[in-house]
């Protein structure tokens, strides 16, 4: 294997001098992460603000004390219904997401111990109306419980005897996660994506580009074995992909420590990662990057030219993207802990990384996932080397 390190160093030197590679594989992930976090931070802030449910109220002056409960919850923006306008007309004019109509004698009926009818009008096809309805029901439920207890106390009845049981919440003592829930779900996806796309900027140039330019033949007539040449290129490709992952992570860390109020919600639990979690992430990323490097190098070797490389990669992207996208929602399903997930490439890596970011390391999953990735990395490298030593493949231009 003499000469592989020379090939590796030469490739890296060329990449470092290529602004295109620096921008897309190193600077790109960092800038993109910063941009994505800013964007999601902004959306998250806007989302929170928007969630003051705008509700149109008819006869609000008669609606005490329920209206006070709504105001106290700080979730609602109350809009008085214009006199002479119906609830339906108000909703049609987008005055609010839903309308609550209190009867004019609401308070009197309430005090008399009767149950006045309060009508809620909403569009069942409108998602925001349904969300606001749930918020109104929540306030109602709390208001109703409080009201019932007060009434029963007035009647000298112990309210607790009417409850089937008392629900007590008992939170498990878990480690503080790396960041907020959104980032923990999204970060593994980003890492996987950059492990794959990081090499895109150079993969076309590595072999197919050399075939096109005619410089590959020069390399083939040196006394360095083809295996060594392929391995040197494989390492260079893996390094660039790894640099992309690190750059993407650096972008997240920068935003985590930057005092930007808009994004602080995304880092609500700070940035804490245990040494075990760091180790788990590294052990997961490295073989994954090597697996991608092997596959990408095989594609570049097989292709006649750089354009052909891009065509193959467009198709290959979907194979990587589907499990990567699924990895974002795996935390919301019961399959996250299933043993078979450890055998699904990409998804297993994302799942282990998600656990690591929650500062919990399942050593069995980590071991199985790493083993699968190592086997695939060896397979990818074997394929790339095999193609590199095939005269028919190497000589087709």
């Amino acid at each position, binding site marked *: 294997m*003499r*000469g592989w390190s*020379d*090939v590796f160093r*030469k490739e890296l*030197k*060329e990449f470092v*001098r*290529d602004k295109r590679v620096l921008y897309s594989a190193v600077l790109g992930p960092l800038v993109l992460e910063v941009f994505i976090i800013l964007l999601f931070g902004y959306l998250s802030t806007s989302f929170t603000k928007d969630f003051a449910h705008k509700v149109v109220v008819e006869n609000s002056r008669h609606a005490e004390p329920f209206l006070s409960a709504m105001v106290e919850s700080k979730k609602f923006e109350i809009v008085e219904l214009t006199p002479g306008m119906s609830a339906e007309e108000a909703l049609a004019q987008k005055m609010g997401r839903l309308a609550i109509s209190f009867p004019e004698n609401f308070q009197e009926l309430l005090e008399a111990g009767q149950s006045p009818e309060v009508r809620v009008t909403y569009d069942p096809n409108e998602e925001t109306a349904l969300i606001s309805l749930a918020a109104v029901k929540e306030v109602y439920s709390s208001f109703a419980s409080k009201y019932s207890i007060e009434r029963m106390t007035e009647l000298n009845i112990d309210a607790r005897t009417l409850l089937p049981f008392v629900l007590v919440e008992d939170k498990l003592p878990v480690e503080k996660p790396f960041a907020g829930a959104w980032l923990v779900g999204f970060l593994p996806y980003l890492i996987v994506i950059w492990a794959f796309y990081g090499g895109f900027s150079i993969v076309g140039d590595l072999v197919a580009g050399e075939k096109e*330019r*005619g*410089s590959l*033949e*020069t*390399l*083939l*007539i*040196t*006394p*360095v*074995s083809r295996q060594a040449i392929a391995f040197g290129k494989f390492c260079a490709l893996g390094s660039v992909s790894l640099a992309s992952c690190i750059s993407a992570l650096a972008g997240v860390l920068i935003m985590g420590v930057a005092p930007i109020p808009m994004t602080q919600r995304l880092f609500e639990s700070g940035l804490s990662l245990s040494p075990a979690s760091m180790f788990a992430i590294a052990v997961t990323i490295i073989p994954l990057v090597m697996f991608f490097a092997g596959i990408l190098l095989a594609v570049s070797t097989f292709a006649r030219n750089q354009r052909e490389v891009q065509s193959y990669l467009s198709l290959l992207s979907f194979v990587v993207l589907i499990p990567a996208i699924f990895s974002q929602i795996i935390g919301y399903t019961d399959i996250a802990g299933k043993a078979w997930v450890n055998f699904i490439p990409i998804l297993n890596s994302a799942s282990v990384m998600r656990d690591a970011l929650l500062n919990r390391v399942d050593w069995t999953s980590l071991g199985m996932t790493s083993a699968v990735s190592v086997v695939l990395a060896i397979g990818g490298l074997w394929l790339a080397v095999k193609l590199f030593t095939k*005269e028919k493949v190497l*000589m087709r231009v």
Partner: protein
Amino acid sequence: MITVEDLAKHFKDPKRGVVRAVDGVSFSTSPGEIFGLLGANGAGKTTLLRMLSTVIAPTSGRAEIHGHDVANEPDAVRKSIGFMSTTTALYSRLTPREMLKYMGKLYGIASSQLGARVEETIAMLEMEEFADRLCDKLSTGQKQRTSLARTILHDPPVLFFDEPTAGLDVLASKTIMEFIESCRDRNKTVVFSTHIMSEAERVCDRICVIHDGKIRAIGTLQELKQATGEERLERVFLALTEPTESAA
């Protein structure tokens, strides 16, 4: 020294069936000789040189370069040869000096000698002016000299030149041709592939006319002229290759 015996390379083509790119070629050359491969485009010259330089494997036959079998001792063969072609590009983001150092390492030149050898080659080809400029920024002539430097850096006893002046201007071609001529004095074995008659006439000690993958004739320019009864090499070449074309 090169010995080629009944060397052949056949490809399977989905449209054309079996293509006999090189078909039973035999010849030998000695140190200090410039051996010309004269043939039209597609005659099989490049395929032949690729087999001799171990880039592709022969379908049948055998060849020895500097005492090493191309099929069984490819590494030893590669150490013994230098290969130059105009279709071979340089690494655009390396300087000529960096590229020579890189190639020197690949050829296994000891680090203690590499620096001196690179400087010696740069001086020999008068490359000092542009040795530290990126290859991407070099003129065609400078690129060609860099390519030449890469070919001879490890001082191989056997040199292959595959259409080395194709697409070059007169001045750049002159540098290459003068270099090839100088190889004779340095006792190198040179195989010079070309389709340009005047170049073959000027530098070759012996000329091998190759057509449709087969050797049509081998000899000195005088011998070929005598065999065909023609005076100019162009007429000699046509006389040796036309019968097959008319038969086809």
